[in-house]
């Protein structure tokens, strides 16, 4: 018995030891630092804590460099694998390597009217060979939704913008990226596309889902194929305008539901870097808000995705009338870090008009200054580099402050400006006037005017006149495509030479068409929109432009490619027009039915009654006493009274 008990107790002890051993082994997978710390004794805790604080920045650094560390091992393993077979290819290209690049910038330009213009620029470079036909499956920084759109619809270039408000060129100068009010989409397709219109229709539907906008309203009635405007902004082999489509929706509204998917295309989202500043409650409470996505190939092996957001904050609505702007006042946020995935993250503040600090004061001060040639002028910028920890100072957050001291000084007048309005009276005819201003004192330059008018405004092209300084100005190139009812709009493209210091007026008369009653919108008395005219031109520049494309330049100055030094390319959009069409009375069918039924009922009914009614004589009913007497008489069998 005792031996049995001994054996059983030994078995129990063995089982207990086994269980403890397995538990200890499972706990070994927790970080050894955590396991080691409670094991040490008291006197060693001081050194332990210092070791831990020293370990923490090392851990942070390890987090920043994590991608490189992880990819070193497949490199080594791949290198080892490739050493065995005969290595006739370049050895360092073994294994996947991070090739995408992301840069972010914020440019702040104080305007002379007291408003402030902020422009966010984000650029993602995607290294891929688009001549290869097989599908790309590895997306690192480039958003997968756009990458799939590009490959599925054989898109070479895609430019889409959503704008709320109209850019006032005379008060604010030229924007870094121009955009018309509403939504604008223009796409260059690859040469391999067989049916461009079909692909265009599918592409607009897919984009309407991605950006939560009603881009599916883009169809053949508002799409045009420009013949000379909208040349590709990326690298090309040959330009055939059969593969270009341009459409604009002037009625499209922009709100948070468009900003949300736009922010999700960024590598860091809205959680780190400059995108933290994009709060919709502040961004939409502004005079002008425009967000755009531009995709183009910049080399045979790389694509560029640029996302730009331009916003102008008004002095009186957002600034409460005080000429003092800060990041917190503009965006209700301050910056605490750069996006960890960005190779460069900078803020540029335009201080050209403030060389000695006499107009406004910029704080915190920064030693970095840079001079860039942008929009034909050399501008000086104060630069804040967010990848350096020193920019954030001791408070670990950056809140730029611009305080105006004096409100003198005029803005340099922009050289090119456009306006458009509808003249005439009544609901039958009218006239469209487009005015183009050339403010250069002695140089003339050519402009290309693109007008796309919907089919329900029937243009009389024989009344088209182009006059400058009172004299007729014959355009050197005209391309006109007439509209077809309910199929396609008018397209008018003209190359006009603007004489120096002049106003050129283009007028054309039109007639309004009657729409079918199902074609009216639910609120037809608001009016119908006509999209903005596009004025593209090569404007003479004040300083020599940089034609070297491969040089490192900030994003806002390298949007339009520059081919010659003496001029730069600019695109100006006019206002959209709001035209009233003759609107029927939609309650008319109901009124007609009521009136007709009433007339028929009263007229025909009474006539029918008169003709078919027959008359019978009826004795009046006797009084109560007589009725009682009649009842008694009937009972007696005597004839009634």
């Amino acid at each position, binding site marked *: 018995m005792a031996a049995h008990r001994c054996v059983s*107790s030994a078995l129990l002890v063995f089982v207990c030891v086994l269980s403890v051993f397995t538990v200890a082994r499972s706990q070994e997978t927790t970080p050894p630092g955590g396991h080691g710390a409670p094991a040490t004794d008291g006197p060693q805790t001081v050194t332990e804590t210092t070791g831990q604080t020293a370990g923490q920045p090392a851990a942070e650094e390890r987090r920043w460099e994590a991608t490189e560390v992880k990819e070193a091992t497949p490199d080594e393993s791949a290198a080892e694998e490739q050493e065995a077979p005969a290595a006739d290819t370049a050895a360092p290209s073994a294994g996947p390597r991070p090739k995408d690049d992301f840069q972010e910038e914020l440019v702040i330009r104080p305007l002379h009217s007291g408003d402030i213009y902020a422009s966010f620029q984000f650029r993602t470079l995607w290294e891929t060979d688009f001549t290869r036909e097989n599908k790309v499956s590895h997306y690192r920084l480039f958003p997968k939704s756009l990458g799939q759109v590009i490959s599925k619809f054989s898109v070479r270039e895609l430019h889409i913008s959503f704008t709320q408000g109209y850019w006032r060129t005379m008060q604010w100068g030229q924007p870094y990226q121009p955009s018309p009010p509403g939504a604008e989409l223009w796409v260059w397709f690859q040469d391999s596309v067989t049916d461009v219109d079909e692909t265009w229709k599918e592409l607009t539907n*897919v984009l*309407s889902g991605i950006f*939560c906008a*009603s881009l599916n309203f883009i169809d053949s009635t508002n799409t045009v194929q420009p013949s000379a405007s909208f040349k590709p902004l990326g690298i*090309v082999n040959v330009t055939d305008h059969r593969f270009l489509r341009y459409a604009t929706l002037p009625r499209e509204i922009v709100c948070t539901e468009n900003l949300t998917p736009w922010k999700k295309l960024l590598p860091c989202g809205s959680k780190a870097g400059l995108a933290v500043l994009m709060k919709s409650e502040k961004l939409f409470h502004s005079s002008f808000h425009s967000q755009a996505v531009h995709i183009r190939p910049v080399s045979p092996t790389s694509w560029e995705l640029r996302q730009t957001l331009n916003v102008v904050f008004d002095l009186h609505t957002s600034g409460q009338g005080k000429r003092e702007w800060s990041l917190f006042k503009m965006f209700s946020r301050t910056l605490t870090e750069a996006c960890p995935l960005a190779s460069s993250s900078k803020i540029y503040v335009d201080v050209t008009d403030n060389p000695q600090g006499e107009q406004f004061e910029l704080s915190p001060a920064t030693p970095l200054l840079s001079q860039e040639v942008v929009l034909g002028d050399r501008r000086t910028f104060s630069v804040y580099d967010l990848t350096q920890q020193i920019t954030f100072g001791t408070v670990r957050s950056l809140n730029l402050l611009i305080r105006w001291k004096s409100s003198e000084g005029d803005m340099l007048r922009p050289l090119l400006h456009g306006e458009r309005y509808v003249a005439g009276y009544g609901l039958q005819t009218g006239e469209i006037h487009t005015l183009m201003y050339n403010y250069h004192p002695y140089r003339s330059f050519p402009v290309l005017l693109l007008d796309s008018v919907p089919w329900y405004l029937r243009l009389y092209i024989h009344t088209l006149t182009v006059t400058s300084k009172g004299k007729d100005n014959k355009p050197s190139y005209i391309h006109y495509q007439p509209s077809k009812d309910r199929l396609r709009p008018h397209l008018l493209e003209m190359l006009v030479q603007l004489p120096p210091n002049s106003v050129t007026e283009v007028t054309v008369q039109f007639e309004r068409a009657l729409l079918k009653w199902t074609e009216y919108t639910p609120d037809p008395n608001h009016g119908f929109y006509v999209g903005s005219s596009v004025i593209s031109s090569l404007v003479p520049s004040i300083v020599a432009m940089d034609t070297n494309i491969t040089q490192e330049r900030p994003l806002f100055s390298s949007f339009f490619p520059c081919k010659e030094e003496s001029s730069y390319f600019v695109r100006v959009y006019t206002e959209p027009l709001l035209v009233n069409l003759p609107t029927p009375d939609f309650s008319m069918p109901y009124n007609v039915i009521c009136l007709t039924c009433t007339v028929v009922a009263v007229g025909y009914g009474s006539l029918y009654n008169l003709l078919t009614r027959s008359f019978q004589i009826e004795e009046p009913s006797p009084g109560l006493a007589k009725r009682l007497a009649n009842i008694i008489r009937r009972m007696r069998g005597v004839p009634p009274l």
Partner: protein
Amino acid sequence: MLILMTLFSSCLFVSSSNIEDNVGNFFSSGHTNNWAVLVCTSRFWFNYRHVANTLSVYRSVKRLGIPDSHIVLMLADDMACNHRNPKPATVFSHKNMELNVYGDDVEVDYRGYEVTVENFLRVLTGRLPPSTPRSKRLLSDDRSNILIYLTGHGGNGFLKFQDSEEISNVELADAFQQMWQKRRYNELLFIIDTCQGASMYERFYSPNLMALASSQVGEDSLSHQPDLAIGVHLMDRYTFYLLEFLEDIHPASKTNMNDLFKVCPKSHCVSTPGHRTDLFLRDPGSVLVTDFFGSVRKVEITVETINLTSPIMQTEEKSAAYGDLQKETYSFSDQLPVSEIIHQKPKQKDWHPPDGFILGLWTLILLVFFKTYGMKHLKHIF
């Protein structure tokens, strides 16, 4: 020792049977995914409250777990960025601007003129054109619980869309029957907040439908409170109290449908909310509110390990060869090549066969020619 072993093994046995019970409870509600279709049908600034209604239900549904990809949100007009809105990018549900139901992370699938009766019925029945993106489709299956919420102006038997067309209760009932026949839902909860809302669910005849309305036939649904800074009424009463009720629900709560039926009694709502459960197979007391408003996922934790396959090696040697060939021919194009444009050849138009008019004109010319000169000249010509 033996007693210990038996005790141990019996403990294991009991816990395993508990696991089996849990596994049994896994699929008791019958649905595996949740969808929501939220529609606001009114246009114009004074109908701000209908957009606020829809957005407050959207907010609750998102908070309880249904993701944006499973929500079809249709707003007929834009109130947040409307030029009359004194606080842009916000839609408030409580006065003094307490709660912004628009938020910072909203995705509207159908907006503006896209909200029509046709699009609504197409979304429900799934008969959309092939190029419609996924975010605009209701991709439900026979294990989906769908929540449908409609708000706007309505009458006895109809609901007005955008002030220009109506949907009738018969059309709606037929659409649900189509959904049932195509196995597009497991259970469907229909909530409507309009005047005389109960008339919209009178004609339903498909199984597994539960309906709630804010007012009976002959009654009007009233709005809750105006905000003097914004200048319009912010919410309707029924949805206001529904939102208050939903704010207390969290993903693990066990509140059932009977509590939902009690939302907004006549003292608060002035109208009498109604509901219809005769077509529903389960007892409403056993149906959780999160079965429709939330997306409660059952999670199963496994300790098995899965071996991933070896990483894909990208072949880069071939691309280098292609790059050399094409590098010379690609360059940035001139944005305004004036000389090229002036000397541009006219676009080669595709050749179309001659139009009817041209054919008729030439036939007339030929006829006149041959009439005047006689047929004998034909021999000389041909």
